[in-house]
């Protein structure tokens, strides 16, 4: 009953006609607004809320191009705007039941003002013609079908509540004669009593409103998300184009410093740049540079994933649109899904063939070594976790597992590569450059110079200065302390490390 709305019946009541009897339309003409005309009418009408009988019985009903008006006596007037009706069906009279018209509602987005019931779980209403007069029902039904087809409310909208007064409109008539004020008093009471009586408290209304707005937010979010993915795809390719352009230009200008900077930057966002690399880095061991990796996969994979998913989604939606599914469609669904998937997988395999060849040597340290070499140029020590992240980030797909990376790192030393895995006392694992003598000790002289120059070092400061992770920096400081190079200073300001002047007194006693 939340589509039925109370209307102001004062004008009809004021005309003095319209008692509940007879098939005439009575005072209903006073209700009509400009452009409305009565197409069909009936009497002895009972309304149903879904399948439930309501107390609105023995009323009259009138059909206009815009709405269905139901009224009983002079007091109770309500209407149902036809814009809320999606379609109508007809139930013929049975031995027990009177003929009914069933009006199915469209989705209601906002609660209607002055609704007979604020909420209702029913998506339809029934108009029961208790007179069992099939001619009236048929006429009404045909009229209804005609006005629903015409959809006048879309082409020539009119205001159905021209003077939308409060339900308690009796105050205006308070100065009228006794009988009138009595009848309008009944109206002003009837409406609110019914409202509260059908359980339409404020909280339920708020809940309903929240649900509606949530649903709206959800749908707009979905739209935004699908839009974002497309945006991301185009951005990724733009970014790559920009990177390629930049590196080409840098190469033209032959500026080593800028090119170095660019390369570092590109690496930090996970884009490999073969152009700069080939030119600037004959590097430590040129033959170990694999020419595979990220840039081929990043845009490609994005488009592939998005394209594939939306294709499958759309296709599934199309398959399931009719409910229940017809058998041929159902069978097609099960038949085509594996076929389509298979085609995509094959296509992927062909497209990614070079990567497959590449991945045969995936677990060799060579790949990791290539990436490592660049980071180690100025850093010296790299935590294995960081190596794992940097490496996989640059690859984009075809990711290595942490165990594989660790295993590869363990192979550095047996394979006589210039790096080795180092396990610190706390268990942190890092890769460090192996010194020429094979000792593999971190260069403490560099750190000591730094400490002397800075006065003291914290893990954070060392990490910044050497561009290493704070975890590794802490470990290095602890190692140097154990070796007696540094002395710690623990205070509220944190853990600092000073040169160990206890064991190695400073030669210049100036800073004291």
């Amino acid at each position, binding site marked *: 009953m939340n589509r039925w709305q109370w209307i102001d019946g004062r004008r009809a009541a004021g005309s003095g006609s319209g008692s509940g009897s007879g098939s005439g339309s009575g005072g209903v003409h006073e209700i009509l607004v400009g452009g409305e005309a009565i197409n069909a009418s009936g009497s002895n009408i009972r309304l149903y809320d879904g399948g439930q009988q309501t107390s609105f019985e023995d009323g009259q009903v009138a059909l206009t191009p815009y709405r269905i008006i139901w009224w009983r006596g002079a007091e109770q007037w309500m209407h149902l705007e036809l814009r809320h009706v999606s379609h109508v069906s007809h139930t013929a009279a049975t031995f027990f039941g009177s003929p009914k018209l069933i009006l199915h509602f469209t989705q209601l987005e906002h609660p209607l003002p002055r609704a007979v019931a604020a909420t209702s779980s029913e998506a339809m209403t029934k108009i029961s013609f208790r007179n069992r007069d099939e001619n009236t029902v048929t006429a009404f039904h045909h009229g209804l079908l005609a006005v629903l087809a015409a959809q006048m409310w879309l082409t020539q909208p009119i205001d159905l509540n021209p003077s939308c007064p409060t339900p308690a409109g009796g105050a205006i008539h308070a100065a009228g004669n006794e009988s009138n004020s009595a009848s309008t008093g009944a109206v002003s009471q009837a409406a609110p009593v019914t409202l509260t009586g059908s359980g339409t408290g404020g909280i339920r209304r708020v809940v309903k409103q929240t649900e509606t707005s949530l649903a709206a937010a959800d749908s707009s979010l979905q739209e935004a998300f699908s839009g974002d993915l497309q945006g991301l795809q185009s951005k990724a390719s733009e970014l790559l184009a920009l990177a390629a352009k930049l590196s080409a230009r840098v190469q033209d200008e032959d500026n080593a410093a800028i090119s170095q900077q660019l390369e570092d930057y590109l690496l930090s966002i996970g884009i490999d740049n073969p152009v700069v690399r080939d030119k600037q880095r004959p590097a430590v061991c040129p033959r170990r540079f694999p020419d595979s990796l990220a840039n081929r996969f990043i845009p490609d994979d994005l488009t592939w994933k998005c394209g594939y998913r939306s294709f499958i989604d759309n296709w599934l939606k199309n398959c399931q649109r009719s409910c229940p599914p017809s058998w041929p469609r159902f069978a097609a669904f099960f038949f085509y899904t594996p076929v389509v998937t298979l085609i995509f997988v094959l296509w992927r395999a062909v497209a990614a063939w070079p990567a497959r060849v590449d991945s045969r040597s995936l677990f060799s340290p060579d790949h990791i070594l290539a990436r490592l070499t660049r980071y180690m140029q100025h850093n010296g020590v790299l935590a294995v976790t960081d190596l794992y992240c940097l490496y996989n980030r640059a690859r984009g797909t075809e990711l290595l597992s942490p165990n594989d990376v660790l295993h590869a790192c363990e192979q550095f030393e047996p394979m006589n590569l210039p790096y080795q895995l180092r396990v610190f006392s706390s268990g942190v694992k890092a890769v460090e450059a192996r010194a020429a003598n094979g000792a593999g000790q971190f260069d403490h002289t560099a750190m000591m110079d730094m400490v002397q120059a800075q006065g*003291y070092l914290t893990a954070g400061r060392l990490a910044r200065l050497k561009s290493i992770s704070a975890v590794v920096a802490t470990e290095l400081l602890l190692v140097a*302390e*154990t070796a*007696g190079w540094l*002395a*710690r*200073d*623990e*205070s509220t300001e944190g853990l*600092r490390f*000073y040169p*160990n*002047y*206890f*064991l190695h007194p400073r030669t210049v*006693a100036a800073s*004291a």
Partner: protein
Amino acid sequence: MEALEEAPWEYSFPPFFTLQPNEETRRRQLATWADWVLAYTKRANINRLVVADAPQMELFSNRAIARSLNADGIRSVLDYLEQRGNLEWIDGGTSCLLIWQSPARWAQLLYDWAVRTGNTDTVCTFYELREGESTESEPFHGIDAEMLRKAVAALQREHKAELIQMNDAPNDLEDGIKFF
């Protein structure tokens, strides 16, 4: 404050106030601490140290660099001093005697004073020796009672003096010493 003038350079070196985990470094650190504590207490003429008050002493904290040795550190330093024989725990470990000068040396100073001022064959009370006007310019003026007893015991062994006890229990004010 003047005692601080003798502070070693380590006193301004922040790691000095953190116990070093490295064994060798810590040994060197504690040795420096021990020397510093004795130098300071000697200069300030302190014999007794209450452990609970130690963290507030400028000896263990340097306001200029906002560093102080924590309770563990102080305990380690004092234990180290005990190992070296420069410290003796008293009052059930809540305070300690700092022996930057041996009791025999104190005894010598006391006896020299008694001879010089003609106090031999007389009885001087502990109070007189520690707080009296006649000893104001002496190094043992204000000496800790516990240390004084050790010095008297040393004199007794040499038969140069005798402890005169007024009551059964030791009394730091009324007990006296008779120099021979």
